[in-house]
């Protein structure tokens, strides 16, 4: 069941086209990552879904209602990027204020506020003024306020911004627990390592266009590239393989594993369109060689991302008035 769906969604800020016909679907219970350079349109997409900015073209639905529907917001949590909490509140009073706006009952607020603040690790300072909080604490408070009313969908825009590595891991684990409880998380982050670790699906935006979308495995797979390793001392039939149309490249020698296992040599095998690895495997067998290693090559999400956006202009900011500032926005 989809909780978020956009169809040919577009947004223009004057002459600047922040989104250009983006269509995506997020299923219930997923952690969905949105990647892109600064100014790619990630935050604009979130803001449209939440009704913060207006749609220029296309359609967007959130929880089966048009994006921006006021009543739907009761079922949605949001941590904006660069949020600014009123300094005159304490963590507790801010949560209490937002809880009232969400319609959380007084009893529930009394029970859930300390619980939620405990969950993000700032319950010890919940009665201190926010103006005395560190950036990381404010970030944790931001996450807490997005969870207070037990929302079905949680939008987190750079949730680990300003948080130390330990805190990041805690936030990651928290997202995992939320997913287990059936929450859907829409994550916007620059930390690709985190996204790779936690997200079920990822979309990459570039200059307002959705350029790639899929599972982590789909995005990181390098189609047509394999690593092949033979038993120690055996020579790879490079010439025959090349004659069969494979491209061969020696990578390195790799350890055979724990203990005194012998070292094996690794080759990268490239396939051409329509070709499979099966013919090469048969060749190795026919030659009486011992296949010890065969995996389809993968890349990190960062590699995949960089490969996708390679050559793109540096990200631009929406507020820039310079003529070159076209193609997107990161608000």
């Amino acid at each position, binding site marked *: 069941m989809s909780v978020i769906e956009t169809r040919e969604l577009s947004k223009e*800020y004057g002459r600047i086209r922040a989104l250009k016909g983006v269509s995506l679907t997020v299923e219930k219970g997923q952690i969905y990552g949105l990647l892109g350079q600064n100014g790619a349109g990630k935050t604009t997409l979130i*803001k449209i879904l*939440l*009704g*913060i*900015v*207006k749609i220029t073209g296309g359609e967007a639905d959130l929880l089966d209602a048009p994006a921006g529907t*006021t*009543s*739907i*917001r*009761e079922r*949605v949590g*949001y941590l*904006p*990027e*660069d*949020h*600014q*909490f*009123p*300094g*005159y*509140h304490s963590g507790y*009073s801010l949560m209490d*204020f*937002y809880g*009232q*706006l*969400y*319609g959380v009952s007084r009893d529930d607020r009394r029970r859930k506020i300390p619980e939620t603040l405990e969950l993000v690790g700032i319950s010890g300072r919940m009665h201190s003024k926010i103006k005395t909080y560190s950036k990381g604490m404010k970030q944790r408070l931001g996450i807490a*306020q997005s969870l207070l009313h037990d929302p079905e969908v949680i939008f987190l825009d750079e949730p680990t911004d300003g948080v130390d590595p330990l805190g990041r891991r805690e936030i990651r684990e928290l997202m995992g627990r939320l997913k287990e409880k059936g929450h859907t998380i829409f994550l916007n982050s620059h930390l690709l390592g985190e996204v790779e670790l936690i997200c079920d699906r990822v979309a990459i935006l570039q200059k307002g266009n959705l350029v790639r979308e899929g599972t982590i495995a789909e995005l990181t797979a390098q189609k047509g590239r394999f690593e092949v390793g033979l038993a120690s001392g055996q020579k790879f039939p490079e010439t025959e393989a090349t004659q069969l149309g494979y491209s061969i490249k020696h990578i390195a020698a790799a350890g055979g594993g724990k203990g005194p296992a012998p070292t094996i040599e690794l080759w990268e095998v490239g396939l051409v369109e329509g070709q499979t690895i099966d013919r090469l495997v048969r060749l190795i067998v026919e030659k009486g060689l011992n296949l010890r290693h065969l995996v389809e090559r993968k890349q990190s999400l960062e590699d995949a991302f960089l490969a996708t956006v390679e050559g793109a202009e540096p990200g631009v900011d929406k507020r820039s008035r310079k003529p070159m500032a076209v193609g997107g926005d990161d608000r």
Partner: protein
Amino acid sequence: MKQFLAILKDSFREAMDAKVIWVLLGLSALVCLITFSLSFTPEPPDKAFEQIVTKFNFVFPERGKGKLPVILSDATAYTASNVQTTADGYTLRLTTKPSGNPLFRRGSSRPDEKTSQPDSLRFAVVNWQKPAGHTRTMGFGQNGPPLEGAEPQEVTLEEAETLTDDDLDTFIQQQFAVHAGMDNVTVKRVTDGVKQPEYAFDVVIHSTEGVRGWPTTTKLFFGAVTIPAHFPLGMVLWFIEEKIINGFGATLTLLIGVVITGFFIPNMLRKGALDLLITKPISRPALLVYKYIGGLTYMLILTVTTVGGIWLVLALRSGFWNPNFLLLIPILTFTFAILYAFSTLIAVLTRSSIAAILLTCGFAFFLYLVGVIKFTLDDFRADPTQRAEVNKTVGDVVDGIQFILPRYKDVDRLTTKLISDATLTPLEQYALAKSKVEYPSWGETFGVSFGFIAVMLGLACWRFQTRDS
């Protein structure tokens, strides 16, 4: 409703977070303390009535309904004697006799020897019954300051002689009400041993309260400083309530209020702060209107503490509980609401607190200026001799501007009227506000102002609703 209360509470918290409000509350406490140091000692009844009856030569025509008094220039010598204090008030003997002082002649700005009245009391009573004569600025007494008043009407011998004892009694009764605020007074003419044109009356006053008109010795700083003049208690209260609180205090509070609250909505509209609010299940117009109302709590806190405090202290020290003064709390908050609605619109349009503050201060000054010009023009137009001097185009332009703008100055005038009605005698009101301009109506003043607030907020909500965050 819960959301409204939440935003109200949030605004209250925001207001209390501003350090300036504590300074203002401290100032308010200081004013309350200084007020508490006041002491009011009523003059003894014999001296008090001696002073009160000297004012009886000011006669409000049409049986007290006239706006301007007929100044009879001490034509009658009133004497209060044999003043006794009773269980529920006072008794006294009031005697009158012609002083021989001349009156004003028609068209003259100084008393004329030829106008001396042989039976000055009856002359006064007939003038009290008749409609007002021509308005004229006249010298008060032989060498007194010029005052605007009604010229005495011609009185025929027949008119004077047809007056009954009841007419005379009622006149004296009303003079006590008008000049001393004593409403429950019984007057009976005494004829035994008194020969016209002298008169005597037995007066019974069924009240021990003498706020208005009763001369009082006022001391400041717990008796350390004595104010030399024996002003009536009501006039001292009026000065504190009208001049210090409603005048200086209110202006200062409004200006500081505009500055402090000028940050509230731009702060809410800051990037990063606004998104947190507008993604909550509350519509943008509701959010803005609630925030606007929340901003008014700032003024409410200050007026409740200051006006309420002064009211309580004055009442405890003087024994006079003036509920009209408490109306200053909603009225000042309403005046602030006018300015804050404008500030809200500017804040939504510009998101700049500096712009909101400066433009609102400028707007307040403009409203004040329009009110003053309009008032001055109306004063001219109310006087037949000056009416022609008002340029019609200028008058029409000022009338047009005043028509569409909130009645900032009129609200102030109506507040003055509220305070004055409760503390001053009609003669004191006349002496302190010599305007010929009628007070504006409450309905029109508040109706137009409410309309302005609605338009400002409507535009602000529309812009807030239609723009991206």
